[in-house]
């Protein structure tokens, strides 16, 4: 039981990092990144590939972060000329390209089989202690990611990002470089997502193209919308709730008599209905974005 709870906790924390990253893009800046899973994949594959060559995991994280950051910056620049909906479609296409490469470059990525036996962290410990230590580590990383996201959101940079989301022309007229702001926020978010991917691959000790399906991005979107678009705390809340829900529905076959195929359908359906329901009934999410109070006079 403890191990199960720790497992869900680890997964929730990993997803929360991802949700913080997506919230910076979608919630704060209004950049509809449908290809978030590509950044996660870059991080995960970097860690897994380097691990299979016995390179220390920290190097894998660094390489993943650099690659993902560069990819994020490029995607952000692509956003320059595009209306937001086509940009969203373009990001989806890019993520599918990444998945196809992962699927077809067998020698490098293990192809459809993916890469398994990725060694985790705290390998020296016994099972339960190791889960606990892993959980603690990832919670610390999540804490750092949360602080970073919060500081960025609440400072001048966050103010500019929100203004870009709401009225980009106004932001540009006030000497804010809209392109650079988007490029930088994409790079930062991509780095966060790659860290999430690295931990994900290490925790389930596997990464394959099946993990890079668009549904993985969709799951994170659900977390961010349920938590409240634009609210940093909301992203974490949403991540925890949706992880519990999505993981819980693994046991759907214990409750009703359906085939494995149908059970998979039910799990996806539940997530889809939750997202659609929130969009229709409570668009602002559980923890809505706040209008900040005025600073006091000195």
């Amino acid at each position, binding site marked *: 039981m403890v191990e199960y709870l720790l497992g869900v906790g680890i997964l929730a924390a990993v997803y929360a990092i991802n949700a913080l990253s997506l919230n910076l893009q*979608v919630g704060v800046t209004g950049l509809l990144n449908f290809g978030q899973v590509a950044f996660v994949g870059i991080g995960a594959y970097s860690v897994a590939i380097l691990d299979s060559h016995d390179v220390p995991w920290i190097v894998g994280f660094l390489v993943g972060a650099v690659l993902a950051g560069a990819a994020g910056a490029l995607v952000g620049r692509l956003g320059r*000329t595009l*209306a937001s909906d086509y940009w969203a*479609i373009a990001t989806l*296409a890019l993520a599918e*390209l990444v998945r196809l490469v992962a699927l*077809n470059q067998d020698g490098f990525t293990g192809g459809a089989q993916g890469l398994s036996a990725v060694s985790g962290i705290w390998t020296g410990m016994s099972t339960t202690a190791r889960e606990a230590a892993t959980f603690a580590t990832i919670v610390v990383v999540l804490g750092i990611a949360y602080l970073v996201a919060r500081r960025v959101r609440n400072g001048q940079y966050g103010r500019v990002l929100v203004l870009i989301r709401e009225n980009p022309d106004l932001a540009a007229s006030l000497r804010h470089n809209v392109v650079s702001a988007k490029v930088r926020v994409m790079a930062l978010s991509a780095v966060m997502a790659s860290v999430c991917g690295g931990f994900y691959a290490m925790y389930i000790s596997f990464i394959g193209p099946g993990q890079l399906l668009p549904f993985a991005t969709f799951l994170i979107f659900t977390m961010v919308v349920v938590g409240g678009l634009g609210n940093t705390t909301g992203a974490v809340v949403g991540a925890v709730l949706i992880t519990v829900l999505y993981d819980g529905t693994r046991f759907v076959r214990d409750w009703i008599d359906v085939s494995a*195929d149908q059970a998979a359908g039910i799990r996806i359906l539940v997530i889809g209905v939750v997202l*659609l329901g929130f*969009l229709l009934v409570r668009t602002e999410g559980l923890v809505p974005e706040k209008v900040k109070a005025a600073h006091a006079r000195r």
Partner: protein
Amino acid sequence: MVEVLVDTAVRGSIIALLAVGLTLIQGTLRFANVAHVEFATLGGYSAVALTGAGLGLLLSSALGVALVAVLAVVLYRLLFRRLLRSGPMIALIGSLALAIVIRATLQLLYGSRPRYLPTPLERGIDFHGALITPSQIRLVCISLGLLALLALVLKFTSLGRAVRAVAANPELADVSGLNRGRVVDIVWMLSAGLAAVSGILLSIDSAVGIELGFNLLLPVFAAAIVGGLGSIAGAVIAAYALACAESLVLQIDWGAIVGGTHHLEVGYRPAVGFALLVVMLAFRPQGLMGRAVRRG
């Protein structure tokens, strides 16, 4: 070479039927409907359900198309109108969510294994070295016929004029006494109906699976965007061009460039559409640019 031609005609037709619908919706509502391709999947499965109930293939197909068209209007009224009120971003996420819900529902009902429509076994025709089935010929003819019909309707009927008026200026149409709501309803029926036709044709040619629509999402968007959104003719031309490019890329011997003989792996076929989409979006965004918001 003939193979490329046949391939282009078949796949291009499927993409074109979907791309014109997407373009019509985009033109009238200024909104990219990610769930559009799911109407194709729904078309395929309605035909499966109706033939399963004992109806003939032709009747099932016609009823299936009608069902999907009606469902589209219901979804628009119940769902999309509400989503659109919360802004284009919410509408886009919402259409993605709807797509997932439709796919998951179908998986729940039919499982993820492909289904086949009861089509008579027909002998392929050898056409200068390429094998063509009669169903492929029908597919291309029906598609071209419908596309031509759509073009005529849009160009010469009062409905067509109304659609074009709404597309040209969504806000103004109300003022000039047009019933905008009616026009939008009809556009949804038309575009979802065409999508369903495309799905059924594809199901007859091969099979229908829950991923039928999703696998077409990016090529269809690529065609609609490359064609310059809102342009029916552009979307059709781009659809066939894209299909041709996909087919050619696999046929070409890249050895001339990289040395030796080197064909691209078939697994990369969808990548052509993605890559083309990204390249087009990056370098030739005319007609699809965040058109300078009026800064009056």
